[in-house]
């Protein structure tokens, strides 16, 4: 590659507040179109915006997690344009004074940390959802007014991997701070990529191309790599890059032209007159930060300290529900690593088999912790513990009932008890003793089987073997 790619990202995140950004309409992502709409969302004359405090709190948390300067005075502006998805004919946003500015986040690349600068984070309201058909378009006003934060990075990324890691880090922050579902495939986290190429060492930016419709981390990385190659090939042929908007076609693995950008739209911004600047007290800002749920990075470090492998910590943290479940096992006093193993292996396979999410498991994580403790406490094998777990999951029964129904009892490794089984077995099988003495190793296997039979399977096999050899030597 002869060119350096310069990449900046704009990420829109839908916040999961109880009500919308500027109206009292519920914000519960109902699937039934146009069921969560107030007169404000439809821009009926005389309706006025009411700022959602919860959204401000969430935006502060995200801004803080991104090491941003937080503006203690909120200003809002109108962005004016006509579009069918914009009922008021303008969007209320924060053009002049975003709530957060000048921050960064860290990604890991080749084992080293890299800082990516973030220019701004601001609050705004979402538009209607449009569904296009051949000769008509349907509008769903449920989405009109859903609170958004927009996070604008500096153009400081240089390949698809970095961009993907950056989006992943943002997603982790918004998900773990409780701000958003962060589901790219459902549009609750939307990412637009700006990418330009320039010869290495050149200061000026090349012509910028925008890529939209990126609905997974994988697509972001692939789209950028494709675009790098496309633009690079054009430049090598001596052609110019057009300023255009493209979308990623997942099936072809290519970016496709949507439209060539002409002059930028003039949004005729001006201050929103119905929201006078809102002063945020230090207490409000501090409280929002202090009450922020524990974020991904902190949990990750903590899990490692609990003895989890990096890989396991990542798997558990890939879903906040899984992480919550994992943390729910710990008060049982179980080994974190043990609980993690059960969660990653047994619980996950069970979920896959049933096709359900961990939230639908209906099994108290504390109980899982207790099951893992049985290994040590009652000297059960991993297999036995797993059987108890599956029984509990299937039958919604208690651990004791599961144990009873599965006839699982603790292994006997008490020396006296094993000795008595061993003695009884030896006494009953003089021929086997003779065979053993004659060098037939197979005879000892038979004797182990006899001991297990006598102990009804409860004797610990390794202890039995040791004791047998010891006693055989004496005879």
């Amino acid at each position: 590659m002869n060119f350096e790619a310069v990449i900046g990202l704009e990420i829109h995140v839908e916040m999961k507040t109880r009500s919308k950004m500027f109206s009292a309409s519920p914000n519960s992502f109902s699937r039934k179109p146009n069921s969560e709409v107030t007169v404000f969302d439809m821009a009926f004359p005389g309706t006025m915006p009411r700022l959602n405090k919860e959204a401000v709190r969430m935006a502060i948390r995200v801004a803080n997690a991104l090491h941003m300067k937080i503006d203690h005075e909120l200003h809002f502006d109108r962005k004016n344009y006509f579009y069918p998805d914009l009922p008021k004919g303008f969007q209320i946003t924060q053009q002049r004074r975003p709530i957060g500015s000048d921050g960064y986040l860290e990604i890991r690349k080749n084992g080293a940390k890299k800082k990516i600068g973030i220019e701004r984070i601001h609050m705004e309201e979402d538009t209607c959802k449009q569904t296009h058909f051949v000769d008509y378009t349907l509008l769903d006003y449920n989405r009109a007014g859903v609170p958004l934060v927009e996070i604008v990075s500096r153009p400081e990324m240089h390949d698809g991997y970095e961009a993907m890691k950056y989006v992943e880090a943002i997603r982790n922050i918004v998900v773990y701070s409780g701000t958003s579902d962060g589901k790219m495939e459902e549009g609750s986290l939307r990412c637009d990529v700006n990418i330009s190429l320039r010869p290495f060492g050149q200061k000026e930016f090349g012509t910028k191309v925008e890529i939209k419709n990126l609905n997974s981390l994988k697509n972001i990385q692939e789209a950028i790599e494709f675009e790098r190659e496309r633009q690079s090939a054009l430049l090598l042929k001596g052609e110019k890059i057009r300023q255009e908007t493209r979308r990623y076609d997942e099936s072809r693995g290519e970016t496709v032209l949507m439209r060539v950008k002409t002059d930028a739209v003039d949004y005729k911004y001006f201050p929103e007159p119905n929201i006078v600047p809102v002063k945020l007290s230090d207490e409000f800002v501090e409280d929002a930060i202090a009450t922020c749920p524990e974020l991904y990075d902190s949990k990750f470090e903590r899990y490692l300290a609990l003895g989890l492998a990096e890989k396991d910590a990542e798997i558990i943290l890939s879903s906040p529900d899984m992480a919550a479940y994992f943390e729910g096992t710990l008060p049982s006093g179980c080994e974190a690593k043990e609980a993690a193993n059960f969660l990653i292996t047994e619980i996950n396979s069970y979920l896959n088999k049933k096709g359900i999410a961990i939230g639908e498991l209906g099994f108290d994580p504390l109980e899982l912790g207790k099951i893992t403790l049985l290994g040590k406490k009652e000297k059960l094998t991993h297999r036995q513990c797993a059987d108890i777990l599956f029984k509990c999951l299937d039958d919604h029964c208690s651990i004791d009932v599961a144990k009873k129904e599965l006839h699982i009892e603790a292994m006997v490794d008490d020396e006296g008890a094993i000795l008595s089984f061993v003695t009884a077995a030896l006494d009953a099988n003089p021929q086997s003793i003779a065979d053993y003495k004659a060098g037939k190793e197979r005879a000892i296997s038979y004797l182990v089987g006899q001991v297990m039979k006598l102990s009804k399977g409860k004797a610990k096999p390794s202890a039995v073997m040791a004791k047998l050899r010891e006693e055989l030597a004496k005879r």
Partner: protein
Amino acid sequence: MNYLDMDILSLHEALVEKKTTPLELCKEAIRRAKENDCNAFEKILEEEALKEAEQLVEPEKDNVLWGIPYLAKDNFSTKGIETTASSNVLKGYVPLFDAEVIARLKERKCVLIAKTSLDELAMGGTGTTSHIGMTYNPYDPSHERMVGGSSSGSAAALASGIGSFALGSDTGDSVRKPASFAGLVGMKPSWGRISRFGLFPFAPSLDHVGYFTRDVASSAVLLSFLAGRDDKDMTSSYRPVEDYASYLDKGISGVRVCYFSEIVSSLKDETMKEKFLSSLEELKKRGAIVEEVSFGLDLLKAVYPAYMVISCAEATSNDANLDGIKFGPYYDGKNYEEAMSKARTAGFSELIKRRFVIGSYCLMAENQEELFLRAQRLRHMIVDRLSEIYQNHDIVYLPAAPSIAPRFVDASDKLSAEYLIDDNHLALGNFAGLPSITVPLAFESGMPLGVNAMARAYEEGPLFAFAKALEEISGLSGLSVMNKKEGKL
């Protein structure tokens, strides 16, 4: 005199003593409304009002607004009642909710008699641009003179004795100017004092809910019920609401009053000038300290252009929702753009379109600095100048208009190269959000002349005390065409 012509407190007394009933008042108001020929109404709510009035049987002694008939400008959202702001673009629009002021009056059991006409979408000051045509001044039976606007129907109807008060809205002078032309008390309190929720916006940074009464006391009584925080309007104030009527008899002794030399000297109407100057003498007799102050001619000349730029810019954005898609007449088209264009082309009059073009032009990126931002800076300078003046004075007192109501043939809403500083200064109160009240001063050729007083923000109380003194000086309390008076000046 009919009970309907009384001030609110006297009428309340009569209602409590059962000398009259809400139903009788309602019937009389509707009778007068139907007879009225000023073209003041979008809709007379005969059925609704009578139904409501019928249910008001047992007087509520502690509720001075019980059974009081009133009018509302048709840019206040009224649940279940078509509200068009006198624009074709909203024809057939029936709101799903009441404006906050309408809801408060409903709760007090006031009876809404009619929705009144206005200059389309409250833009304009002539009362000539409603989709139902011109509104006439009831003091001029020849119908040659305007009543002013944009709250034209409310002014014309209240001056015709229909109801006890009328709601209006005031973005530049839309209550206080027509009040002057119709011999009424027109009040616009501080910005944020009355919730604007449900008022169709024109330019929210300048918009105020205002109202007309026929006497100062009624105006003071009303404000105590209309004012107060409303969570639905984030700009409404948390400041406690006062008993404004308690200020009425405080007098004006020691009150520092000023008038602007530039405006008074530019008056061409000698009667206006003479009556205004003699009122100054009367104010002094009552103990007021009256001083002439120069505001600054350049700043006064900037008022109207700055007002036009800011108000048109905000209006073009506020009215972007009127696209015929969600409400109002729908026009089919092959796509959204076409449907919207058709609705807006057919729905707005030329004057409105011109204002949208001006507003949009001022907001364009390449023009913002020179026009919109410059107008904002001018607004700040003007507000700063007012603050300076209020350091040494309590009340700014001026003629509300240069003269009596103009003839339609002499008036135009078009921008003029001539700066009419004495015709546009009321917008100062909108720029700074100050409480401002117009009261009748005298008559000239049978037409009323009004004066205006403006106080510091949230000093509505002292403003009412001053207005009360003016009312005593003029002797024009309870004025209407049903109850004509000569006046003392």
